[in-house]
């Protein structure tokens, strides 16, 4: 599948740069600052992911994680840019509540999950436990959120200029708020969905497809619901209204912590792997 994944990943990275180039050229200083800040944020989040990864001692090629990040920041951001518009147009035609944004959860999570699927395809040997899917998904999410944060900073600069308000203040606020909320958003959406997808594949390999489907459905529902609620119009200009999205972020962190803890327990008590499923030392989730 690498013949499909590699060109698509590279095409996505080139496309997102090409697509966003006019805004970068319009605000080169903002672009450099935003890219620098998000590179630091991305590095910190990847370091955190590396530190909490219970499967790290078993090894995982760095190229898989790197491809995940590029997929998230490239193809996911590029496709979401115009596919979200199509879903938004459909929602408007159907007179759906404009405070509930359907496009982001549906499109962004679908494209991120496709990346995890492709990465599992090329690295099936390293999908030994559903937590491998969590790591891949979180890496895709980290790529997505860092590049998206850069685009938001550039948009904030353009809007501030149009509204004749200080650009520095608008860009700083955008970067700080979105970076502060980074842990509980895209990385965990994709991480939890990736966990579900990997669970489906691992459990299917063990002849427990039904349970795999149930885990996948639960993970996907959690991800979509969290993303949908997160993107709802809470009116964040009022400090009190920050509470609901903060609760969502905390809930996702708790879910991720539970998945990681249970994963560690599985890894401490390995069960014999079937002969036709090499590299699957852990028991079912």
């Amino acid at each position, binding site marked *: *599948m690498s013949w*499909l994944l590699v060109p698509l990943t590279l095409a996505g990275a080139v496309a997102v740069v090409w697509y966003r180039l006019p805004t970068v050229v319009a605000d080169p200083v903002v672009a450099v600052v935003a890219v620098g800040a998000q590179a630091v944020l991305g590095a910190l989040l990847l370091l955190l992911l590396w530190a909490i990864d219970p499967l790290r001692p078993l090894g995982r*090629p760095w190229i898989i994680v790197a491809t995940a990040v590029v997929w998230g920041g490239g193809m996911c951001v590029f496709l979401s840019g115009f*596919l979200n518009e*199509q879903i938004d147009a459909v929602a*408007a035609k159907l007179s759906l509540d404009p405070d509930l944004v359907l496009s982001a959860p549906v499109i962004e999570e679908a494209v991120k999950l496709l990346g995890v699927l492709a990465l599992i*395809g*090329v690295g099936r040997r390293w999908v030994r436990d559903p937590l491998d899917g969590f790591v891949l998904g979180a890496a895709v999410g980290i790529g997505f959120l860092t590049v998206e944060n850069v685009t938001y900073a550039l948009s904030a600069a353009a809007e501030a200029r*149009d509204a004749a308000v200080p650009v520095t203040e608008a860009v700083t606020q955008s970067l700080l708020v979105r970076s502060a909320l980074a842990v509980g958003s895209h990385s965990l959406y994709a991480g939890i969905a990736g966990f579900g997808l990997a669970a489906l594949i691992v459990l299917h390999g063990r002849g427990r497809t039904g349970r795999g489907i149930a885990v996948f459905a639960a993970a996907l529902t959690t991800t979509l619901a969290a993303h949908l609620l997160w993107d709802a119009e809470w009116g964040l200009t009022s400090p009190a209204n920050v509470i609901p999205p903060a609760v969502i972020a905390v809930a996702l962190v708790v879910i991720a912590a539970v998945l990681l803890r249970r994963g560690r327990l599985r890894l401490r008590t390995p069960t014999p792997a079937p002969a036709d499923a090499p590299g699957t030392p852990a028991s079912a989730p």
Partner: protein
Amino acid sequence: MTRRLERPGPLLALVFALGFALTVAIPFAVNAAIVDPRVHDLPATGASISYQPVDGSAGVAYRAPGGWFYRESEVGSDSQRFSAPGESASIEVRFVPARTTARATLEDARGQDAGGLDLQTVAAGPSASRGERLWAMLPDGGAVGVAQIDVSGWAVVVTASGTAPGGAWTIVPDLLASVTTTEAESHTTDTTDGAS
């Protein structure tokens, strides 16, 4: 353990390829398949559409063609699309930042040189504001035009496509001739003036 990446089964590759294609195609297909039910007819006298810059400076307004209709999803604060009855023709009107000349504004808005266009000057209506108004037929049978008012930093750019009503795009110079300045403070698209 070897660190070589594996070849996945053809089924997984097929699922990925199919999933990718569907993820891209379905949003476009669904959007194209659903006709916007929120259609509004413009009255015979037309409707005034205005744009007011957020900095409070002078904006611009024009008169949309009477008897045409619009869909809510195709009308925004900075661009509007109107369709002729039967959808045989449509015009897209955009509010854009004015450049040094109307020609430069048109070139900037279209993203291409206007050298190949036979730009004609449009005479302003009696109640219209002073400025420069140009329009031209396009090789594909459509038409383009621009109206740039002296006191506003914004201009109106019109693009017409489809079959010209009555065989001529008189609707384009008529719309350009109606362009005036506005001084309102709010950043709105006003479709309440006669629009139903």
